[in-house]
């Protein structure tokens, strides 16, 4: 790469919007990191849940929105991560905090054979195939008598006490871990999309056949994304159930909690943009806090909203805003811009034209 001859133009990622948006986002992160000083236990608990869903929805968006891997089976890895953490703590006496990276590692490893099987299925059949795998994981967990079989088990008080001294300290620590993990996952997604693999993903998304003919190794790129996203989901799952302190196969591998709601978030926020799932998470929690007393009616409303968004505004709320107003928070666009020209020479006149075609990366599902 470094040996490339000096081109008359260079790729720039930021726009004026991202130069405003990114500092604002960082400011928001600082405010959230200080939450233990401005909110109570309930608030921190709710925010912890927000971070978990933001992370899961971002990972699902990476799979479905950027890589064409529409899965309804990521609860397999959420649950696997949770079971890894509980096994590490209960069977091997490891500090549960170490269970989180262990969950990430084992989740990523388990993703390889899962991909080997399910990648044989195309499109929507892939989606249901991943669901079957998640069911297999759930049923196997129910046979795992060391962790309570079908009825599950709890972390004993001694293990809980080993996380931190005192309840307040533990809750703060878990809060920061949840925020930190969500930021880590978001940063990993941003770096991946900024790298050449991100460009490959955009090419696969826009036209798989053309991408193949350009020499992109479609299957390997997809496998890499699936492994990363599954490891991420496993870490999130481990942390979620470390906060809950109790695990059961039905809760850990719940398709409703870890996939249906996650898909809802990504759909209403906007699939195929990094900002979408974050906006979607905020919208979802607003809806949930106002409607949840409706019980099952509330879930019907969610289903109806998702259908309406999919049919009327398939790019979601952020997609509509970004299309109309050119907003972006994260510098992910790829634009050709003239290099600072040597003194006395005019910039090449064709650049504006090239620019229009090259603003590719951050666009929604333009198939």
């Amino acid at each position, binding site marked *: 790469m470094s040996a490339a001859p000096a081109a008359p133009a260079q790729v720039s990622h930021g726009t004026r919007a991202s130069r405003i948006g990114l500092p604002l986002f960082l400011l928001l992160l600082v405010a959230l990191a200080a939450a233990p000083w401005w909110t109570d236990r309930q608030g921190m608990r709710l925010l912890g849940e927000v971070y978990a869903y933001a992370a899961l929805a971002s990972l699902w968006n990476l799979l*479905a929105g950027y890589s*064409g891997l*529409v899965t*309804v089976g990521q609860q397999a890895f959420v649950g696997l991560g949770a079971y890894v953490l509980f096994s590490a703590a209960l069977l091997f006496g490891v500090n549960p905090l170490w269970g989180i990276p262990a969950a990430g590692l084992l989740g990523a490893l388990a993703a390889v054979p899962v991909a080997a*099987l*399910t990648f*044989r*299925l195309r*499109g*929507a*059949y892939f*989606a*249901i*195939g991943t*669901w*079957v*795998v998640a*069911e*297999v994981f759930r*049923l*196997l967990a*129910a*046979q795992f008598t060391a962790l309570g079989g*079908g009825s599950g088990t709890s972390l004993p008080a001694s293990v809980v006490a080993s996380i931190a001294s005192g309840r307040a300290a533990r809750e703060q620590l878990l809060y920061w871990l949840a925020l930190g993990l969500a930021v880590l996952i978001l940063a990993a997604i941003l770096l991946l999309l900024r790298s050449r693999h991100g460009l490959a993903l955009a090419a696969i998304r826009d036209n798989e056949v053309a991408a193949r003919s350009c020499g992109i190794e479609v299957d390997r790129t997809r496998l890499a994304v699936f492994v990363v996203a599954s490891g991420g989901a496993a870490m999130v799952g481990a942390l979620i159930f470390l906060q809950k302190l109790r695990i059961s196969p039905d809760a850990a591998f719940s*398709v*409703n909690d870890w996939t*249906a709601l996650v*898909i*809802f978030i990504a*759909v209403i926020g906007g*699939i195929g943009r990094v900002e979408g799932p974050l906006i979607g998470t905020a919208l979802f929690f607003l809806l949930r806090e106002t409607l949840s007393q409706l*019980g*099952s*009616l509330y*879930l*019907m409303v*969610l*289903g*109806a909203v*998702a*259908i309406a968004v*999919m*049919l009327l505004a*398939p790019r979601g709320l952020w997609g509509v805003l970004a299309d109309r107003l050119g907003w972006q928070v994260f510098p992910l666009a790829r634009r050709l811009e003239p290099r600072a020209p040597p003194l006395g020479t005019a910039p090449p006149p064709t650049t504006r034209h090239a620019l229009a075609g090259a603003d590719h990366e951050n666009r929604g*599902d333009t*198939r």
Partner: protein
Amino acid sequence: MEWVNAVIQGVLLGGLYGLFAAGLSLIFGVMRLVNIAHGDLIVLAAYLALVVTGSLGIGPLPSLLLVVPLMAAIGYGLQRLLLNRALGDDLLPPLLVTFGLSVIIQNGLLEAFSADSQRLQAGPIETAALPLGGGLAVGVLPLLQFVVAVAAIAGLQLLSWRTPLGRAFRATADDPEVARLMGLDNRHVFALAMALSLAVVALAGVFLAVRTNFDPAIGPARLLFGFEAVIIGGLGSLWGTLAGGVLLGVAQSIGAQIDPGWQILAGHLLFLLVLAVRPEGLFPRLRG
């Protein structure tokens, strides 16, 4: 003898799975739509039958006369009003719209009927059995259900290959654009396919409701069984779908014979095994 019995029961159960799968396979064939709400529609049909039998005081089998046309009408309307808008080159909209539909049906049933288990009472036929000798017997009801499944799939096969409607289905499946140029209204053809699919779903739902307890949450598992039968049998082949259902039923009932906790797992493992060694399915339609 126990094992022979398990296999026989599995085969009969497989007829039901073949029915689950036939409706799924039909609409995938015609419009490349994978209906995530398929299992929930089966459960919806079961509840419709519950209401019909309860309010009219008729048995489950006569209730089919009402439930089948009702479900077909729901299918036609669903396709015209909702699903046709979601179809296109992009995979996501139909998948996510039917996913939303699944959530709506599940929670709607929960709201209307609560989470309690229900069962359709079929009267004395429930316990009637035909002795096969050697201590073996088959229940009349499972046998009837298997015969109906075979008849339904034979009917679908005839309809596909011997009628103008079947020709329209195949033409639209092969090339929707050219089919439209030849004067077919794709939206109508798709809606008819969905109506037919949900008519089969209605059959499946009523037999399911007679056979086992059901509640609003069991839909997704039925979707997975139907889907597994389609993949095991091989895409695009109706008889293969029935064979896939039978194999799945046998795997489940042998699994249950080993350990009740292994019933569903054994079926899933058979599916994964087929996916690993023969991803095109056991009986794929020959391309000619």
